[in-house]
């Protein structure tokens, strides 16, 4: 049984339908990537899983449990953490306080402690007392990932973690993913950087205008298939 599944997942913003019946799955210890153009519904998909966008209860199943209608604060307690697009660190909290508050809802014990996050991202230890606004974009992204890890999630949802970052910084951040995976955390990556996504993912889903346009293992997909799924024929 997959750890996380969506069945005919739909999502709405008022009268606007953003997702149209998405079927996806994530196995234990697996990394999947969601790719697609802007507005294809990638971020909405993550928000629906994380509880920020409500869906029907059975449309999102986590470890056999229907969670589609649960609020975000409950979902993180079950073991799903979201690294939101744009980092969105808490401005009035220091870097260390941002990390600590990651464990607020789910302080169950596990591999990810403050020291372990600092070991993963040593730069954060040096800036532990700093205000997030004084950090570089890459450091902010590290803090946002560290904050999500502090809840010791079983599933980590990452929304555009490479957005607006220099290639060398992106490489640093992606270098941390194998260590996260080694702790048994499954990961859903939403990415516009297809090369990075294909490199780390076990499977890839491509969305187009809220619909699933392609699914498969990176090595099995051709450039033409991806191009067609990404932009339409």
């Amino acid at each position, binding site marked *: 049984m997959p750890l996380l599944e969506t069945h005919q997942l739909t999502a709405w913003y008022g009268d606007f339908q953003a997702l149209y019946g998405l079927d996806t799955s994530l196995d234990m210890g697996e990394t999947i990537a969601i790719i697609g153009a802007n507005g294809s519904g990638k971020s909405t998909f993550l928000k629906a899983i*994380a*509880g*920020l966008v409500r869906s029907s209860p059975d449309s999102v199943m986590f470890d056999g449990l229907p969670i589609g209608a649960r*609020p*975000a*604060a409950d979902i*993180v*307690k079950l073991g799903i*953490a*979201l690294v*939101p697009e744009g980092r*969105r660190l*808490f*401005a*009035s*909290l220091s870097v260390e*306080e941002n990390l*600590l*508050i*990651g464990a*607020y*809802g*789910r302080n169950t014990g596990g591999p990810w402690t403050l020291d372990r996050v600092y070991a993963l991202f040593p730069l954060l230890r040096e800036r532990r007392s700093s205000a997030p*606004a004084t950090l570089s974009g890459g450091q902010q992204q590290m803090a946002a990932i560290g*904050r999500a890890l502090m*809840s010791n999630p079983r599933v980590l949802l990452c929304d555009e973690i490479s957005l607006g970052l220099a290639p060398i910084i992106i490489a640093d951040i992606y270098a941390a993913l194998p260590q996260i995976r080694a702790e048994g955390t499954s990961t859903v990556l939403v990415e516009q950087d297809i090369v990075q996504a294909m490199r780390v993912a076990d499977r890839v889903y491509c969305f187009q205008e809220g619909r699933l346009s392609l699914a498969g293992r990176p090595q099995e997909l051709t450039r033409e298939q991806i191009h067609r799924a990404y932009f339409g024929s």
Partner: protein
Amino acid sequence: MTGWLDALIQGVLLGGLYALFAAGLSLIFGVMRLVNLAHGDLIVLAAFAILVVAGKFGLDPFVAVLLALPVLFVVGFALQHVLLNRTLGRDLLPPLLVTFGLSIIIQNGLLQVFSADSQRLRSGAIETASIPLGGGIAIGVVPLLTLLSAIAVILLLNFIFYRTPVGRAFRATSDDLEVAQLMGIDHRRVFATAMGLAFVVITIAALYLGLRANFDPTAGPARLLYAFEAVIIGGLGSFWGTLAGGIVLGLAQTIGARIDPEWQILAGHLAFLLVLVVRPRGLFPRAQD
């Protein structure tokens, strides 16, 4: 010269009372961006609650307040959980209307139960006790206790906000409500806790209001005005700023009264307007507001 020095000292002490009025308002606005128009009436309601507890059990108000504090924490928590949480959203109008309505309900409810008669909390000799400082200047024990309590309240609030997990949750929720929920923070519970805490501060303010002056069911709106002015003079989101705002207001009033007793209230409002003109964000605004 002695008269002016006395005015300055009394102004600082009066500022402690205004800071107590303002601290609860500042807390609520800081955490949930709720402008509570019933704040002054809640202070008066708490003063009546202390009066009832003191009268019923024959207790000194300083003891009665200890019994009233946990009860009013629960009342504040429940008020937020049951009523005010439903009004919070992107539209600022519903909480304003609901708290305005609450203000009217409290005033009329108190009128029904206690009549329009002025009341006062009685605590015996301490009410008139004073400490001579020499040179003909003396400070009242109750005003001094008021200022010390205001400082203690602000130290405690700062400790809670900056040294505890619940304080981190307050600040995180204030910064970004959506992401706070991703941390497992139940913002409705956080707001209710903040309101409960504000009610504790309100109850302490009510104790000193009742010991220092007469109060009646319609005394709330004026207290709200002083609280607003102190918060805005000090700068939104800063507890120490709120204390400073209260002291500026108190000083302006006592200096105004020293010039002419009729100027006391007006001088406070003028000081408020002056700060608005010179520093619209207040004297000590929080950096990111």
